[in-house]
């Protein structure tokens, strides 16, 4: 009714219901609505709703989570009921809904009674017995006894008689105020035992065989007389109804205990949400329908829609006598045997809860955790309220004072798969980024390395070569002639605007305003703590336009970093940032023959060291393709980074390879790149630094401006950051020059078999240098700069100790002659 009201009034509506068909509780009853059987009426309503284009009807769809800002998650099961689903159809779908208004009409769930042997097969909820018979035309047994504390369970008496099931009797905990329901049952020839309780259930492997009943004392705490046994194979029980307040509670509402109905009702709404019908504690059908229209109308008004008037259909009015809340039903007075289960999934019994209370676990949360009450997949939908009330009884309080445990998502369990959705598998979990030249690398059998999301060629093994051999060959070729590296993955950020240089000045440790157009400069950026965060070369493309490069893995972080400062701290700066990483492909050629090679391919570019010195760039054509050529080096050789538009990258690469043949051009991967730069003592941020390293620790004082301010500057003068004995970057040479230290090895001053051993530093980078003919390493060592020439040891996992000498971190061409050439 609520949906129809909203639809007719012109709202966009989603109706979500967890069952396979709409109708909720009406599906399992024989009640008449609007002059027809409930099921028929439901069908008509569904048809009417389906006519509205703005109404979306989701069955098999459970609202599993109600989050902040009226954000609801609906889990739709699409294929579970199909015997032969289309192969590409997703099994489940998660709807994420940001609703302006929510009407909760989630009904109520029947409560079991807590009595001896209430777990025997054949003991069922009364409503379940009705649903079997009325909705599915299946009888759960041949002879039935009903055990109840309220009127609603009397319906099953008539449903059973309709279905041809023999009803042996109704055992009603209530004594006085004989209700109309009891009379009706008696009229149908069913004995009603008022003021009685089931005291034991006898069963065999088939299930229930017989029950014992006894007369209750006035306070209901004991059984005063054994009444006799009744043969039956189904016992339908009803302990009243719990409104399904879960979503209301998830949205932030706090359910309140209603003494009359002995259950929790929704409390004050915190979000744009209202409950209606049984979930709001309204158990009369005709009133439910009226309230639903009211709830929808109120919701509509909240969003500025005038609700139309909708008439509700008539149903049979009936008044119910109040229930009798007897939370724990006494067992056989003579032979008290058997257990009274509260949580059917976790076998938590009434005795367990009382024991918990005796042992001092008195908060309902403690009881839950001590007894596992409500820890099952139903999260206590059946047992929790009974459990809380039993605890209240044990402590002499009211259930309202005990309160509930916290209602949390998921309302019913949801699969990993549904939540993860399509973001699974090799391709969709996390995007794979490939450079424009990727195809070529694959053709050449490159081994790849994951760097962030990128696939980078690691090394290019020739037949018969292992990683070590390949890397040595690649290094030597680059030092002796020319090597080629795909450097497209480096982060590239274009920085434009009047204050671009000012931004660079604040972000980097060195000065930028003096950089002239056409020149490049290396920069280090620090976090607020003064620790090295990222590095790269930035070039001045024109007056107010710079191209910043970052490390491959740090690109996104650096862009966020710059944006964060610009947007939150320096909004007065006129600077615009654009990520252009994917826009350009970068072919880097390095080695003594690189200039000759590039000269053979370029037009309109003067590559002479006078016009294009180290750390400068120019524009022109390479192999007929418009290019920016940067003379930057990470290998210590003369090197050029040729940037062309990404779609031309592969073609340029192939042309360079072709033209390089006479020079024996050799592609090299990240591994060789690492060796080449380590020979030169160039650090890799993230490998030789770990977030606790300052530029001073790296021996890079020269790049830290004393004059201007920059992020991290103040932190550098903190007592500990300015301390002399910090870990500093040094080189290591092993005593046995062929032994390569493992990266990550810890360094100690000498052998010791006791633990702990003081560690003086660790190895950050370590390789065998084919060029030098010995192994080299970079390390961070406490007070390392003062220990040049000294000795340290690296204890290995197998107990070996490697001896090494501390050296300068630059192993090759320390005067930088080669790259400037």
């Amino acid at each position, binding site marked *: 009714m609520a949906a129809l009201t909203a639809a007719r009034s012109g709202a966009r509506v989603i109706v979500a219901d967890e069952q396979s068909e709409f109708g909720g509780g009406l599906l399992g009853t024989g009640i008449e609505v609007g002059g027809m059987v409930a099921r028929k009426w439901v069908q008509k309503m569904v048809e009417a709703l389906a006519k509205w284009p703005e109404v979306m009807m989701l069955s098999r769809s459970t609202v599993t989570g109600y989050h902040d800002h009226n954000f609801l998650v609906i889990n739709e099961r699409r294929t579970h009921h199909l015997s032969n689903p289309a192969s590409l159809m997703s099994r489940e779908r998660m709807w994420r809904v940001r609703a302006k208004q929510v009407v909760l009409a989630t009904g109520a769930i029947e409560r079991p009674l807590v009595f001896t042997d209430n777990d025997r097969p054949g003991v069922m909820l009364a409503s379940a017995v009705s649903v079997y018979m009325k909705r599915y035309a299946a009888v759960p047994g041949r002879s039935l006894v009903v055990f109840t504390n309220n009127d609603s369970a009397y319906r099953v008496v008539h449903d059973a008689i309709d279905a041809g099931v023999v009803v042996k009797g109704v055992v009603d905990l209530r004594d006085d105020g004989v209700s109309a329901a009891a009379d009706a049952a008696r009229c149908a020839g069913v004995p009603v035992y008022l003021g009685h309780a089931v005291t034991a259930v006898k069963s065999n492997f088939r299930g229930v065989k017989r029950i014992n009943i006894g007369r209750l004392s006035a306070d209901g705490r004991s059984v005063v007389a054994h009444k006799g046994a009744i043969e039956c194979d189904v016992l339908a029980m009803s302990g009243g109804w719990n409104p399904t307040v879960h979503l209301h509670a998830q949205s932030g509402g706090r359910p309140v205990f209603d003494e009359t109905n002995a259950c929790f009702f929704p409390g004050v709404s915190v979000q744009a949400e209202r409950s209606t019908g049984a979930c709001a504690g309204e158990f009369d059908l005709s009133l439910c329908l009226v309230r639903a229209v009211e709830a929808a109308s109120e919701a509509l008004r909240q969003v500025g829609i005038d609700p139309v008037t909708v008439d509700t259909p008539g149903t049979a009015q009936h008044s119910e006598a109040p229930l009798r809340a007897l939370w724990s039903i006494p067992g056989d007075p003579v032979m008290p045997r058997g257990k009274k289960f509260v949580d059917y999934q976790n076998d938590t019994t009434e005795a367990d809860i009382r024991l918990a209370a005796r042992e001092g676990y008195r908060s309902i949360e403690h009881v839950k955790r001590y007894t596992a009450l409500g820890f099952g997949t139903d999260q206590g939908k059946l047992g929790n309220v009974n459990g809380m009330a039993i605890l209240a009884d044990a402590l002499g309080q009211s259930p309202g004072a005990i309160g509930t445990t916290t209602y949390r998502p998921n309302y019913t369990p949801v699969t990993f798969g549904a939540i993860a959705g399509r973001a699974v598998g090799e391709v969709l979990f996390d995007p794979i980024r490939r450079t424009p030249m990727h195809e070529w690398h694959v053709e050449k059998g490159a081994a790849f*390395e994951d760097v962030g999301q990128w696939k980078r060629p690691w090394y290019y093994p020739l037949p018969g070569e292992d990683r070590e051999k390949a890397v040595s060959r690649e290094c030597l070729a680059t030092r002796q002639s020319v090597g080629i590296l795909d450097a497209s993955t480096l982060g590239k950020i274009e920085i434009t605007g009047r204050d671009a240089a000012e931004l660079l000045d604040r972000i980097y440790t060195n000065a930028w305003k003096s950089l002239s157009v056409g020149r490049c400069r290396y920069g280090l950026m620090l976090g607020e703590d003064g620790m090295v965060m990222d590095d790269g070369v930035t070039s001045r493309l024109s007056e107010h336009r710079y191209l910043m490069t970052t490390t491959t893995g740090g690109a996104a972080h650096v862009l966020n970093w710059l944006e964060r400062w610009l947007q939150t701290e320096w909004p007065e700066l006129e600077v615009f940032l654009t990520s252009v990483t994917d826009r350009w492909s970068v072919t880097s050629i390095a080695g003594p023959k690189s200039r000759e090679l590039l000269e053979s391919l370029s037009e309109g570019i003067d590559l002479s060291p006078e016009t294009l010195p180290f750390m400068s760039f120019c524009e022109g054509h390479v192999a007929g393709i418009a290019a920016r050529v940067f003379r930057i080096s990470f290998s210590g050789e003369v090197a050029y980074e040729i940037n062309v538009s990404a779609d031309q990258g592969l073609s340029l690469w192939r042309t360079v390879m072709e033209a390089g043949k006479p020079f024996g051009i050799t592609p090299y991967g990240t591994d060789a790149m690492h060796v080449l730069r380590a020979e030169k003592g160039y650090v890799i941020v993230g490998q030789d630094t770990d*977030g*606790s390293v300052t530029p001073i620790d790296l021996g890079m004082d020269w790049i830290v401006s004393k004059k201007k301010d920059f992020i991290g500057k103040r932190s550098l003068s903190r007592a500990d950051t300015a301390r002399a004995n910090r870990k500093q970057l040094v080189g290591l040479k092993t005593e046995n020059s062929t032994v390569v230290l493992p990266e990550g090895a810890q360094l100690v001053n000498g052998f010791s078999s006791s633990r702990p051993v003081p560690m003086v530093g660790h190895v950050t980078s370590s390789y065998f240098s084919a060029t030098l003919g010995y192994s080299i390493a970079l390390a961070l060592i406490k007070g390392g700069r003062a220990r040049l020439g000294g000795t340290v040891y690296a204890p290995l996992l197998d107990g070996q100790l490697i001896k090494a000498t501390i050296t300068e971190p630059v192993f090759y061409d320390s005067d930088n002659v080669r790259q400037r050439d």
Partner: protein
Amino acid sequence: MKHSALQIFRQAWSSHRKWPRTWSSPEPKPAYDVVIVGGGGHGLATAFYLASEHGIRNVAVLEKGWIGGGNTGRNTTIVRSNYLLDGNEPFYEWSLKLWEGLEQSLNYNVMMSQRGVINLFHSDSQRDGFIRRGNAMLMHGADAKLMDRDELEKVLPYLDFDNARFPVLGGLCQPRGGTARHDAVAWGFARAADQLGVDIIQNCEVTGMRIKDGAIDGLDTTRGFIGAGKVGLAVAGNSSRLASMAGLRLPLESHVLQAFVSESIKPLVDTVVTFGAGHFYVSQSDKGGLVFGGDLDGYNSYAQRGNLPTAEHIMESGMAMMPCLGRVRVVRHWGGVMDMTMDGSPIIGLTPVTGLYLNGGWCYGGFKATPGSGWVFAYTLARGEPHRLNAAYRLDRFSAGRIIDEKGVGPQPNLH
């Protein structure tokens, strides 16, 4: 009463009617020598060690709700000491040693299970990082083992070795790591402390602090004023709130972290495993549910609930690591408030207010620290100065730059 097999037999004989209360809940006294604020694992452990190690028994633990109801009862229960840095590893290793004998010293079953913690790595640089960490652990006297792919295939056959976006190359294992039952830890400490005379006072929220001449005098609470010679704060996610009552601003932010539990399934995960290419860690409880989690939600909050995007990322990472999880159903998820510091390491020590001591900044790794934290905090409270093991965790380390940044991500609390 001491727990023992004989005791169980005896109690069964009297139909379990004679079990005493695990801890008594006395009315607060007007004043105590030491008042601990926060009845989580850390607060209760502190009280226990004050009484057992230092003979200080006129102690109260004030808890605003029910003991263990904060992060102690919300976490994913992973216990380990696989830290890298000098300031951290000795402390966590000491804590792990205490865990190893905890059930005996408390005479309470905390279900400590040393099933091993394996951190997977997926790249060369991650491997280097783990070698460094593993070596540091060994040098410190802890245990560590680098496992290659072949070994992992034997113990974690369910991982997606071949097809993963980020293939599993190996893992760093700490065999002595594992899990413990979080609630039982709180209850066990409470029981043991109670038996030594400590007052555990629940439903008692501290609402203000009285400070006289720069020294703590006592606390205003929802159950009246309680005088105190010394006060120890152990309130995790509420540290900044409590500190502000003393006029202090702490270098930390409060963030939400979620945890999840699946339906019970047959034994599948018999260690703790963490994914290295996304945020996901998982273990399996004795009941069969997978207990797992991932990263912070990312925004500052005191709300003990999380949102969907982080949940999605966690499920995605879980399935990337273990595709077999696809049809496993997640029953419930919840959140806890994390006291995230600027360097990701805790703060245990003195404050500018005389007699007021702080234990906080646990980020999302404080459960494993519970016994160690209580032990050093008790020492600090008793002696008025930090123990060697928590000397590095001083509050003023940030201004001096003595940061202990395991992850190396800098002073951004939500990245630790």
